[in-house]
């Protein structure tokens, strides 16, 4: 059993070293800052409660990503169960644009949302946050080869979507320029 001082020091170290990293993944998973904040807070709260269960401090990073992943799955299930959301509220939420929609960041997030979690998570953990393929395999509970193939497929799929989105944007800009010139 860890003593309180050690627990607190470990927690602080975890916040300093992995807070931003977990936030970035949370944002890519949820698509908005509000939900990312909530998800990261819940992840750290669970980490604080279960810190005594972490046997090897060097595995902290992977352990935190596992908590985040489980917490995200729980939040999705909870959101699906929510009975108090009425149809107009759902419609309003669905129509609400991203804060930075219209800019590349918004389009990128939109493109990413077309990927399912099995392809998205290896991309976020390995490509975005630099986890080793082995560590990602441990977080995701799948073999190393599966991570590699999903990583490749996820990348290619995302590129295809992005090219399509960017292509639409280029055409739109040409149209706008054309309109400006003709008026």
């Amino acid at each position: 059993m860890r003593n309180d001082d050690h627990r607190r020091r470990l927690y602080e170290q975890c916040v300093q070293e992995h807070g931003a990293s977990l936030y970035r993944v949370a944002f890519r998973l949820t698509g908005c800052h509000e939900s990312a904040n909530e998800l990261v807070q819940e992840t750290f709260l669970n980490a604080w409660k279960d810190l005594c269960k972490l046997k090897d401090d060097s595995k902290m990073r992977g352990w935190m990503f596992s908590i985040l992943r489980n917490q995200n799955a729980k939040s999705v299930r909870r959101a699906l169960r929510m009975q108090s959301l009425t149809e107009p509220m759902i419609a309003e939420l669905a129509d609400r644009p991203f804060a930075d929609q219209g800019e590349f960041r918004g389009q990128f997030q939109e493109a990413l949302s077309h990927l399912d979690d099995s392809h998205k998570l290896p991309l976020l953990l390995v490509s975005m946050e630099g986890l080793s393929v082995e560590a990602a395999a441990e977080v995701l509970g799948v073999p190393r080869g599966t991570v590699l193939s999903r990583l490749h497929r996820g990348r290619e799929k995302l590129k295809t979507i992005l090219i399509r989105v960017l292509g639409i944007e280029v055409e739109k800009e040409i149209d706008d320029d054309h309109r400006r010139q003709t008026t």
Partner: protein
Amino acid sequence: MTIDDKQLDAWLRDVEVPQDLNERLLAIPQSASTVAIRRKRPLLFVASILAIAASVVGIAIFVLSSNRSTEPATIATNPELVRELEEIKAEVAIIEQAMHEAEIRELSERLNAFSSEANVATIDRIQRTALIVSLSDQSALQLGASPEWVRRDMARVIQRFPNTVGANHAQQFIAQIETQ
């Protein structure tokens, strides 16, 4: 048009992280312990009530068993027994008063905590009443009232005090009960 892996990874990493993120995350252990204390408090309250009630029952059993006859006529004519029963009655009144005060204290603490968290320090009497009723229902649930009863009572708050902080709180709490 082609996108290389390096470019893709750079775009993936392009997420703005809030400046105060670490500060908020570092505050979690403190707030977690406050929540734990708040959750423990109603249980301590129940435990103390049960302990007091047990001692009253114990005294009553002792008094009644130490007198062979408990017939009303006997009690009425036995001055010592009457005096002892009067003492028990007075004791029960003190306990009732203590319970009442504890409940008021508990509610007042909840009201203060809620108003500082929700930043609703200046609300009128009706709003305050609605909030107190809904907080009391929340307390009742933690003390073991049935969720169905609490849900019904909170629904009444929403109906009687529409568009108030209390009604909003009740609404949120009902939603919470339903998801549990």
